[in-house]
């Protein structure tokens, strides 16, 4: 549909394996600038593996990953973040022995200009006021929802062009989940491109520009929410999932 612009992220025929177990086989997907793209599917479909490969945490066995048209597959995570891709992993992975502010500043490790980093910090504090209140507390004392805000804010501190979000709603109370989804929409309005992996398929597909449905390591369907079925609700029905408990 948008052959005119080059995709920001272009994943072609990606294959990722853990030892002899192939978790992702031949996945292709792309993200255009300014898009929210959702990847949904049941547990074990390879969604997290795909994101991890893009972020450099896993080395692909085959296929290519290009960002701005340049190949980034096989790059180290600390280099991928310098290219402008930030990943918020499932489970948030807050550094609990560091303060909220130290966590945030760590997110800006790749940025040399301290003045700009200061400004980013202030932006995060105005976007997530609770983090400003808790800035000098140890991050381990934050609630789950606050930690998710911190994880997103920390990723934004690297000033990314593409934000990868892995299960941002997992384990959060419904009211908090609303807040997280509102944040994602607001970030897109600020010009950020977002690749969102969610088990909460209905909501993820509804808020996305396009979505991919994955099952057992492959993309089984893709397209706009309309094309995928009644508001994406179909995607969920089709997969027979809906809030599933994950470890």
């Amino acid at each position, binding site marked *: 549909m948008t052959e005119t612009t080059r995709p920001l992220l272009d994943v072609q025929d990606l294959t990722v394996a853990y030892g002899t177990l192939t978790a992702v086989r031949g996945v292709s997907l792309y993200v255009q600038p300014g898009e929210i793209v959702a990847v949904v599917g049941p547990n074990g479909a390879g969604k997290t593996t795909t994101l991890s490969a893009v972020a450099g945490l896993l080395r692909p066995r085959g296929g290519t990953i290009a960002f701005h048209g340049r190949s980034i597959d096989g790059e180290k995570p600390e280099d991928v973040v310098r290219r402008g891709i930030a*990943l918020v992993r499932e489970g948030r992975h807050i550094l609990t*022995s560091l303060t909220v502010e130290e966590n945030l500043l760590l997110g800006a*490790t790749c940025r040399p200009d301290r003045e700009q980093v200061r400004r980013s910090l202030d932006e995060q504090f105005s976007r997530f006021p609770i983090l400003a209140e808790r800035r000098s507390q140890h991050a381990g004392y934050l609630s789950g929802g606050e930690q998710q805000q911190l994880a997103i804010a920390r990723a934004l501190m690297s000033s990314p062009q593409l934000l990868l979000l892995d299960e941002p709603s997992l384990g959060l109370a419904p009211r908090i989940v609303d807040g997280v989804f509102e944040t994602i929409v607001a970030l897109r309005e600020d010009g950020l491109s977002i690749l969102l992996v969610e088990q909460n398929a209905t909501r993820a597909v509804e808020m996305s520009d396009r979505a991919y449905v994955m099952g057992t390591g492959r993309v089984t369907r893709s397209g706009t929410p309309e094309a995928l079925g009644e508001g994406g609700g179909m995607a969920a029905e089709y997969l027979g999932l809906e809030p599933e408990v994950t470890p």
Partner: protein
Amino acid sequence: MTALIQAALDAVYLGSLFALYALGVAMIFGIMRLINFAHASLITVGAYAMAVTANLPLVLRILVTVAVCVLLALLLEFVAFRGLRGADPATLLVTSFAVSVLLTALCEATFGSLPKASPLDDWFQLSWVFGSVYVPTLNGVTIIVTALLLIGLSLFLAKTRWGTHMRAAAEDFTTARMLGVRANRVIMLAFAISGVLAAVAAILLVGTTGTVTPIFGLAPVLYGLIAAVVGGLSSLRGAVLGGFALGITSQLLQSFLPGDLRPFRDAFLFAAVFLLLVVRPQGLISPKQGERI
């Protein structure tokens, strides 16, 4: 009263040394989950550096020794451990044994297996006298140097950018990397710091022994490892605490055990370690409760 103060000072001295050994081991373990047995070789080589430079002024000897230990630590990281990142802890441990055995053999081939003189300046053999309390200069210097190193290291870890990177990497290496912390840099920094700690331990230790053999660093690292486990291996604070606990207990046993039991001091000491680990297998400080560093 005097005897008590004397015993306390001796205990703090031994505790300081053990804390230095333990910190060198824990520094690497915290970042890499590697029990670096080759830390023993760093201390040995540091002591040989002191022996080789015996005719130079003390300041120069210290600088050379620190430089040698830091460079060797970085070399070991690059040659032996870089290819094993993320490997099984058992593989890492065995590799560090292999490195240690190799370096011991190299020292033996170069310097022979006989003790080699590595004296410190005569000034260290004097004592500071406070009333009836005697503090050998070396003990006083050891306590002061260790205190300064500990304060310096805490400030570095707490206040600087690189210190924050190290704390982040010790808690969650993958997350730290994803946020842009360069894995190589943090690990090299940890090895460099362990090199400094080994050099200081070597310098202070040759002050008491006056000679070096190829297995010079072995006993210190064994005690350091035990101290680090007592304190909680993945916490630097734990390592320091464990070092002091082990050193102080050892010295108190030495001072207050009845004379005919004194030869069995270490048996009592390790019985205490054994009991502690039965009651608290995670060590005195566990990362779950507090911070890792």
